[in-house]
């Protein structure tokens, strides 16, 4: 009971009840203390109920009576199932109070646990505050402008919104060029002249957006670079710079190809007029954002440009409206203008046609000339070769037969020599190529091994990454828990409680064992008694019969029969008396228990108090009645 009382007192102290240091058990609680404790608990459990109740009893008896009834009602509202009324507070009994307080304290911790949870760290506090603020803002529903209350003005009025406008910022940190050293001038510029980031955007509202954009771009670029390096870069087994330079050349080549294929249709549209812009947009679409090259626009449209230019030149010069001229004159002028322009236009069209025909003719003749030239060149070279051969033959003609023989022998000899040289070369070549092949085999084997090792390395990297993350998380949790532990209230030792609980449990177990033992003993005894009684009856019945049979004939047997009957009777009475004694002893024990409980509930004291209070209430009533009669 002591532990329970300690727990109750401690909990009540936490709630705010002022409990004296001496009071160590519920028995010593006065009515005022009980009322205060209950009211404070109810205030924590359900603030709306508890705010109406006072923490201290008023002096007047009827007022006290009222307060206690309302308190009892409140307790029942909360969910207390036991019998409760004003008497539980004014004329309390220990077990009643204990059960009520236990119920209330049990209801407490769940509600107050959240409030007493201490935040683990400053940054978490800040984050929680931010989250709470954002949550509150999100909960507020959007209203159309006409319905908005002032509380919405902060988040929903158009003045609070800004366009997502991004401006480039220049930051003085090195990202990729870790190996390169910054020039001294650059460093000076960064130190002295470059304005801070908050001053760089032209509009203050775009500061946040610009920073976000730049940071996200850098982060995603570095993340992508990291991922790409881990996946493809390591596989290619090149150094980072080599890999990057190779990628650059590859991309450049691709750009060239795209430009070439896109530039060609624009060539055909040279006479098609203003189609250059649509081609450009197609090029851009096809390549997804490459820088537009100006030469596509100007290619093939020199002609159209000059056309436009001449038009713009002639137009301003010919239209000079004068306010002094009459309307018809103006119209006449305009018609003349129109006619002249049309003539001009027709001239230009015929010029264009002429030029087109000329160009066509030129291309065709050009092709013909080139073709002729090529053919002539080839014929020339062939003829030169033939000439060489014929020259040599002519020199040899005079002595043709001999020379023929000589030539043949020469040819055979050189053929043999060539073959000889070839075999010599072969002797040199074969070992070299075999060596080459052998080394290649070794190389490829090593490649396999190195790729295996590479894959092992990447898996190890992954494991390292995962383990570092886990370690970080666990360290954070550890920190949090340590601070939590430090912040927990130290006066109540949890371990003492758990130990006591375990002791009590073991005690109860032992008692249970003992009880079962006693019960089994009792059962055994009862069984014995039953069997003995049965035996007795049977024995008596047999003896009775036996003796009775002989009792008819013999006198002594009849006497012994009478003695037997009397013996049986007396013993039976004896047994009955013993049983009766036992029952009476049990009743005595029960009554003694009841006397104890009744004594504990201090009914006498309570009765006296009730009588006194009854007298006080009667007096108050008569006083109030007198007041009413007077006034």
């Amino acid at each position: 009971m002591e532990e329970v009382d300690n727990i109750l007192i401690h909990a009540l102290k936490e709630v705010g009840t002022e409990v004296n240091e001496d009071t160590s058990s519920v028995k010593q609680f006065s009515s005022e203390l009980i009322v205060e404790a209950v009211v404070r608990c109810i205030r924590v459990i359900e603030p709306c109920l508890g705010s109406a109740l006072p923490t201290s009893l008023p002096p007047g008896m009827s007022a006290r009576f009222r307060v206690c009834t309302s308190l009892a009602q409140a307790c029942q509202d909360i969910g207390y199932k036991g019998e409760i009324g004003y008497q539980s507070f004014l004329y309390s009994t220990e077990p009643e109070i204990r059960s009520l307080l236990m119920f209330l304290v049990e209801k407490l911790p769940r509600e107050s646990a959240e409030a007493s949870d201490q935040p683990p760290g400053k940054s978490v506090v800040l984050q929680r505050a931010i989250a709470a603020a954002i949550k509150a803002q999100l909960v507020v529903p959007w209203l159309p402008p006409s319905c908005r209350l002032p509380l919405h003005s902060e988040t929903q009025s158009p003045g609070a919104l800004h366009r997502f406008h991004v401006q480039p910022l220049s930051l003085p940190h090195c990202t990729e060029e870790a190996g390169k050293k910054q020039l001294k001038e650059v460093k000076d510029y960064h130190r002295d002249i470059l304005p801070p980031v908050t001053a760089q955007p032209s509009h203050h509202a775009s500061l946040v957006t610009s920073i976000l954009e730049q940071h996200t771009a850098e982060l995603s670029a570095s993340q992508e670079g990291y991922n790409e390096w881990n996946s493809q870069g390591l596989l290619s087994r090149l150094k980072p710079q080599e890999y990057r330079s190779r990628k650059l050349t590859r991309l450049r080549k691709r750009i060239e190809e795209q430009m070439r294929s896109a530039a060609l249709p624009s060539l055909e549209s040279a006479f098609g007029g203003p189609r250059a812009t649509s081609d450009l947009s197609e090029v851009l679409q096809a390549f997804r954002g490459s820088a537009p090259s100006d030469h596509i626009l100007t290619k093939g449209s020199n002609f159209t440009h000059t056309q436009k230019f001449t038009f713009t030149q002639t137009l301003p010069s010919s239209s000079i409206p004068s306010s002094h001229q009459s309307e018809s004159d103006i119209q006449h002028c305009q018609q003349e203008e129109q006619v002249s322009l049309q003539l001009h236009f027709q001239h230009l069209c015929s010029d264009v046609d002429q030029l087109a025909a000329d160009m066509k003719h030129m291309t065709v003749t050009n092709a013909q000339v080139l073709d002729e030239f090529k053919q002539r060149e080839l014929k020339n070279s062939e003829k030169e070769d033939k000439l060489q051969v014929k020259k040599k033959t002519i020199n040899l003609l005079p002595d043709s037969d001999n020379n023929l023989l000589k030539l043949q022998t020469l040819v055979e000899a050189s053929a043999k020599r060539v073959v000889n040289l070839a075999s010599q070369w072969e002797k040199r070549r074969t070992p070299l190529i075999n060596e080459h092949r052998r080394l290649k085999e070794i190389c490829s084997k090593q490649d396999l091994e190195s790729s295996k090792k590479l894959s092992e390395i990447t898996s190890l990297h992954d494991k390292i990454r995962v383990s570092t993350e886990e370690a970080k998380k666990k360290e954070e949790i550890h920190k949090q828990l340590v601070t939590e532990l430090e912040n927990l209230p130290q006066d109540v030792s949890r371990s003492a409680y758990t130990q006591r609980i375990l002791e009590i449990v073991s005690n109860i177990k032992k008692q249970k064992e003992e009880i079962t033992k006693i019960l089994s003993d009792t059962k055994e005894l009862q069984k014995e008694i039953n069997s003995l009684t049965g035996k007795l009856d049977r024995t008596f019945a047999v003896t009775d019969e036996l003796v009775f049979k002989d009792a008819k004939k013999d006198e002594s047997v009849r006497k012994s029969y009478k003695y037997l009957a009397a013996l049986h009777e007396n013993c039976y009475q004896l047994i009955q008396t013993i049983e009766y004694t036992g029952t009476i002893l049990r009743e005595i024990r029960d009554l003694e228990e009841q006397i104890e409980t009744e004594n504990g509930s201090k009914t006498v004291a309570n009765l006296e108090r009730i009588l006194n209070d009854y007298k006080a209430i009667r007096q108050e009533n008569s006083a109030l009645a007198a007041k009413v009669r007077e006034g």
Partner: protein
Amino acid sequence: MAATETQFMLSVGLIEKDVNGDTLWVWCYPSVGSDLRQVLLSKCCLTRDGRDFHTFVFGQFCRTWYYITTVEVQEPTALNKVTHFSIVVTAKDFNPEKYAALSRILCRMYIKHGSPVKMMEAYVTVLTKGICQSDENGSFLIKDYDVRKAYLAGSVKDVVSQFGMETIILYTALMLKKRIVVHHPRIEALLEFTRVLPSLTWHRKDWSILHPYVHLTDAELEDLKKCPGYVAGFVDPEVSNRSDLFDVYVNLPDSVITVSQSAKEAMAMGKLHKDIGHLIVQSAEDAERSDSQVIKEISVKTKEILANLAALADECEDSKITLEGLKQHHFPPATENFLFHLAAAEQLLRI
């Protein structure tokens, strides 16, 4: 004859693929320039991870014809660590059959002896004497392989049966020395088809316009662009996007001929073309006529047109045609256009 013909042979080379998967140019006689060597390595099917295996491939680069025969080495053999090899013969003339036969002999020698020396002996014998002993019965004689046979080896009838009346587009393009690009994923089909096309302009007998096996690499395309008109075969389907390379595009597997925008005007066709087209189709459909007869008939018609053109040229001064001169004859516009461009192709146009 043998002497001049042997002058056409330029070199012989050897490419090997070994068990490491490397394809190496291991040997050549007398010498092969590094550009040509690069091209030959790319043409040889051994460099392509053993996907397709082509026994015999030929093509042209920088006015040099190359003929590549590839053989898979079967165990047991004198060659160790070699899985496949190719023999490359380069020459100045177009004669696939001759060089295929020669290459076969050289291949067999190489496999048997395991050393290129014997192979070179045979090659030098052919070079000096025009004859060489082969393992099969008989010997290899250069003079057995006449160039005319090579020209006529393809089948015009197949071409006409595949494209029908559209063959006239090919005829016109060839007559006007335009650029024809043919695509087919299989190189053998490509070679077979493209070698026939120059025979439509039999009067020129010019097979140097034929580039039957081209890849989309800078070196080869530059070489291709040096020719004003050509017939080029590509295995790469990407070539259909390269409209700067062709005036007529032939998609062989789908049997579709497209004329590019820039050439549509020059290739406009009229009644004259229709007549010629009909002639070609009829001639080819006749089952009794052989391929050479069909070609002969086409060439007869061509000669007729050229004779007309020459007559027109003689009418003008310095026997060169001008557009005004043509206009005076009031031909229908398509015919006039065709004659104008044909005159340019035959070098009859006044500059």
